[in-house]
């Protein structure tokens, strides 16, 4: 069923009796050409592009819970392409371009809102670093705008620009950045993949891989064996756990990241704002809640909840630049499990086992990557070659020394 304004009016006039379930609930077949493990944003996007762009029809997405129950439904919905390094920036800019056409491509309202993102500057050194980053962005075809404190004051009069310790001295803006309704991304990709013939199999946990003579033949699941020509893993925070079933150790640690949302308010915050001196970022959802977060808790965790010291740290950051937030009540807080890689950058690659492919290491920034990650992973699965924007995301880069370390902090995942 195509969605359109006409359809909405027609349904409104006929008592909304014509809406149908958005995707099927099929029984797993005994064999697929390609099986994707993980029905998060990345797995579903991979399935969509496999079917729509690469002509692969016999594809299944296998999800242990319900689609969208993982990080794709837990993140703070920010999209941007403001990276510095060559291995990253073309990929994230490709992703932002895909976001710009996503709703037409999917015929689904994902509420892509290019309301802009502003990274605040608090010192001379930081200004130099941000100018360098902005130039790298422009060189890669993205947009970047160095804003003065005066311009910032005009657009965001509520910011505390004269904090005694960390006064705001400008900012690097990307006006094409913004936010997207995260659940709708999972649903939109799922609906499109399903309509192109992909089987989305929920409540089905992958419990093992059938590997014979170094070749992956399929997956063992809680609903029986499912054969596959190729298996692509895209399980984000569960990557270490899943790939240990194939006796692999990954350059990844799982960490918990928390997020918070206040009661609904009238529109007060026009874009996404990030604090440059601590770690705090905030935007306002279309429902009115101020959505914000900060650092990882900092220790290995598979619990989808964090601890109080980080809550305090995030709220201190908030009060330093956005004191009005102190007047709002926090409605909800939650955590998600992050697949933190050893250099802070992702992996989209084959493994040493034939037919077994890996997509992971997205850290706290994989939501914005969803379209490009799906496209590049589909490219790899369908053609067995790397997508031109994702050639640096090799699994063996740690062995070979080709790290993509945006922050320059080395092999310590909790610092990325």
């Amino acid at each position: 069923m195509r969605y359109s304004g006409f359809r909405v009016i027609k349904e409104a006039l006929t008592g909304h009796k014509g809406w149908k379930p958005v995707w099927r609930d099929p029984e797993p077949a005994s064999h697929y050409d390609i099986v994707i493990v993980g029905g998060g944003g990345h797995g579903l996007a991979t399935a969509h592009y496999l079917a729509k762009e690469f002509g692969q029809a016999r594809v299944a997405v296998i999800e242990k819970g319900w689609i969208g129950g993982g990080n794709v439904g837990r993140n703070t919905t920010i999209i941007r392409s403001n990276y510095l390094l060559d291995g990253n920036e073309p990929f994230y800019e490709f992703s932002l371009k895909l976001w710009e056409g996503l709703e037409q491509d999917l015929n689904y309202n994902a509420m892509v809102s290019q309301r802009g993102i502003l990274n605040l500057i608090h010192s001379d050194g930081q200004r130099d670093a941000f100018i360098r980053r902005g130039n790298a962005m422009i060189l890669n075809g993205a947009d970047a705008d160095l804003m003065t404190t005066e311009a910032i004051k005009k657009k965001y009069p509520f910011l505390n620009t004269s904090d005694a310790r960390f006064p705001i001295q400008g900012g690097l803006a990307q006006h094409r950045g913004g936010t997207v309704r995260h659940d709708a991304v999972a649903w939109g990709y799922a609906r499109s993949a399903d309509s192109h013939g992909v089987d989305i199999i929920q409540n089905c946990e992958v419990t093992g891989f059938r590997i014979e003579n170094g070749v992956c033949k399929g997956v063992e699941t809680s609903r029986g064996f499912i054969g596959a020509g190729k298996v692509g893993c895209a399980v984000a925070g569960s990557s270490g756990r899943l790939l240990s079933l194939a006796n692999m150790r990954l350059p990844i640690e799982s960490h918990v990241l928390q997020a918070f949302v206040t009661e609904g308010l009238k529109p007060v915050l026009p874009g996404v704002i990030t604090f440059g001196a601590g770690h705090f970022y905030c935007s306002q959802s279309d429902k009115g809640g101020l959505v914000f977060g900060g650092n990882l808790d900092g220790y290995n965790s598979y619990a989808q909840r964090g601890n109080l010291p980080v809550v305090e740290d995030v709220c201190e950051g908030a009060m330093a630049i956005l004191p009005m937030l102190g007047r709002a009540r926090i409605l909800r807080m939650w955590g998600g499990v992050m697949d933190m890689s050893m250099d802070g950058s992702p992996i989209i690659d084959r493994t040493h086992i034939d037919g077994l492919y890996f997509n992971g290491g997205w850290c706290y920034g994989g939501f914005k990557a969803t379209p490009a990650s799906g496209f590049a992973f589909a490219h790899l699965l369908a053609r067995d070659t790397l997508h031109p924007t994702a050639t640096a995301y090799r699994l063996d880069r740690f062995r070979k020394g080709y790290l993509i370390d945006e922050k320059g902090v080395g092999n310590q995942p909790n610092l990325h």
Partner: protein
Amino acid sequence: MIIDHPLLGPRDSSEFTYLGDASLIDRPDPAGEDASSDFYDYAYLRDNPAGWHKELWFHEAGDRSWLVVTRNTVTHEISKVELASDVARAQGRSK
């Protein structure tokens, strides 16, 4: 989380900084035959278990000792806290 420091008693986890898997104590032999592959393993690959995990915490805002904490990564429960120097010595290291 509360970390029951073997010398100082229960302390808030915010006094500590976290390094990672306690296997980082077992630095490979730089003169060994497979040193380059051993160091790759040591520096980059992790078991990353869901469940009990032995890990290194540094009492930065306290007595600046390194601890080996045995903690469940699913529940955040802590079952054992030892001085890292004791653990290293028990493994045959000189300090």
